[in-house]
């Protein structure tokens, strides 16, 4: 019989993988390091500051296969106060780089919405690169759970 963990309690998020001893292949620290590396490549080695950028994501994913997230950056979108690009990363995915959005003055505002697949509970990171060279980031933990027991 094919094992299907979703069957047990009614496991909504098909890809739920938890930190059971010996099962997790990619330790959290390694995943975070790879993410950090990719962030640094994006920012040109500059440590992002907090503020300006807001990442929105659900606390718990309803469906790990398609998790809605949105990101927005405070900006006048003209002159030096211009968001050039925003990178979205998912720390726990095999390849953390999910998407990069590019903006121009014509964009009017720096905001974007997308859906992503999350295989397990992890941090989602958004990094904004401004025209003046400054970089900002925001992080949200999204939980991917078996669920099925709410009463």
């Amino acid at each position, binding site marked *: *019989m094919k*094992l*299907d*963990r*979703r*069957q*047990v*309690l*009614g*496991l*909504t*998020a098909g890809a*739920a993988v*938890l*930190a*059971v*001893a*010996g*099962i997790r292949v990619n330790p959290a620290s390694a995943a975070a390091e790879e993410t950090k590396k990719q962030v640094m490549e994006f920012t040109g080695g500059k440590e992002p500051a907090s503020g300006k950028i807001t990442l*929105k994501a*659900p*606390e*718990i994913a*309803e*469906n790990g296969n398609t998790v*809605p997230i949105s990101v927005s950056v405070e900006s006048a979108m003209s002159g030096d106060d211009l968001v050039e690009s925003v990178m979205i990363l998912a720390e726990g995915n095999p390849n953390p780089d999910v998407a990069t959005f590019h903006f121009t003055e014509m964009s009017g505002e720096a905001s974007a*919405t997308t859906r992503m697949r999350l295989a397990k509970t992890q941090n989602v990171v958004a990094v904004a690169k401004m025209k003046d060279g400054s970089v900002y980031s925001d992080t949200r933990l999204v*939980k991917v*759970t*078996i*669920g*099925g*027991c*709410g*009463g």
Partner: protein
Amino acid sequence: MFTRRDFLQYTVNAGAALGLAGYGANVTRALAQQKLTQDDLLKFDSKGQVTLLHFTDVHAQLMPVYFRPPDTNIGIGDYAGIPPHLVGEEFLTHFGIEKGSPLAYAHTMVDYVELARAYGRLGGLDRTATLVKAIRAERGDDKVLFLDGGDTWQGSYTSLKSNGQDMVDCMKLLKPDAMVGHWEFTFGEDRVKEIIDDMGYPFLASNIFDNEWDEPVFESTAMFEKGGVKVAVIGQAMPYTPIANPRWMFPKWSFGIRPDTLQENVDKARADGAEVVVLLSHDGFDVDRKLASVVSGIDVIVTGHTHDAVPQAIEIGSTLLLSSGSHGKYLGRIDLEVKDGKVVGHSSNLIPVFSDVIQSDPEMATKIDEVRKPHEAELNRVIGKTESLLYRRGNFNGTWDDLICQGVIEQRDTQIALSPGFRWGTTLLPGQDITIEDLYTETSMSYPSVYRLEFTGAQMKEILEDVCDNLFNKDPFFQQGGDMVRVGGMSYTCSPNADMGGRISDMRLMSTGEPLEADKSYVVGGWASVNENVEGPAIYDLMEKHITGKQVVNLPDQPTVKVNM
């Protein structure tokens, strides 16, 4: 912050009068009935211009019930040791309630069986109707808002057979001003819409959005004028419905706590002139305790879902939080005094619905008879008898689920059984018959199949850790409500305060005492999977066969979970 306050204690005390020892049930019962009156129960420090009545989580119980309150309800971190995470003697001490009194019986499991025999059942929608009518008469219709907190349509034989229509027809007579939901959605999107179109009062949900367009599915807010005060009621449905229940039944709808959306709706209500903002919530107590601190401008949250019965509203900053229990046991009431667009005074309590004391409302009683009539023979059909107390509530176990796990193991020939940690389901006293109605009160649902699968020890741990993290997460925004999944055929140790992955240990098969091995497979049965197309008999059919075969059941209260605090 509210710690202890005097509230109505009533004058009767069956426990003290009879020492709780060996007296015939009829004697104590007569005494309780004689001394406690409907007027006592309705006594209230009336105040101000607006009265909110809160009725929630009735789980389709039209008739009065026995419902044993939990003996374990652990709070984590900042939420430990404060309401609603107080049970038994601690609860009595905190709220200054006398042992053996009506409130002790309504709110705790202390001397439960003796007091149940003395004070009788609580609830019954005909009794609630009497209270609602009396309060509307006392205050004037123009001052009272009656709010239905949801989990109204699911949980009984008749609600399952009528797709919730029995509850809709009866609730209509109470003329609710608004409602919110959770288990309602397990009737599926089409049925939910069909009922809402027809029911004649708004179904509010600020936090449900269309998956494709990200647009609100329901109205978020309803405005009322009560006692000359403009009151906004905002609905908040159970945020994790698509995770806790089958998402495939309402695939187009996305939920979530969505504090930012709520803040926008609160601000909009204020801008539209609301002097009082009420959140009609199905979030659960701790979620709403936190929500009150991150969303500003809410005057009152009336909350449900976690079935907590807290005798009075609790103040969290400038927000009042009232949680009115479940199964029709209570009617929650808050009176508000509003001056210059601000709440300047309030009084509140939960009115315990003592069914032997409160008169039956004839109009509602007739309607209840009407919806039950077609099913009467089946409802009353006796399938067995219990020698021991059968109850469900508690963080880890209850004897009803011990019986269900026993049934799953024996009927589906498994080593281990899992029964979901639902908080709905009532209680049977030792010596009571078990009827079809009683069985469905524990198992009535729209996805009842009992699966039979193989899982490794590692997968069992993974499952228990996951459910445990939903129950004992330090951040209430990650708590889904419900209790720990019940386990049969296996024992384990739980450390609620540990982090995920470290809470479950010492998992052993009960039959041999052997520890579960991570890579060895075990045969597991369980019910209420949220997956589509689950194969297996319905839990109520399986349990009917099981109980009929046993004739007499006896489930001693022997917890198989060791809790490390």
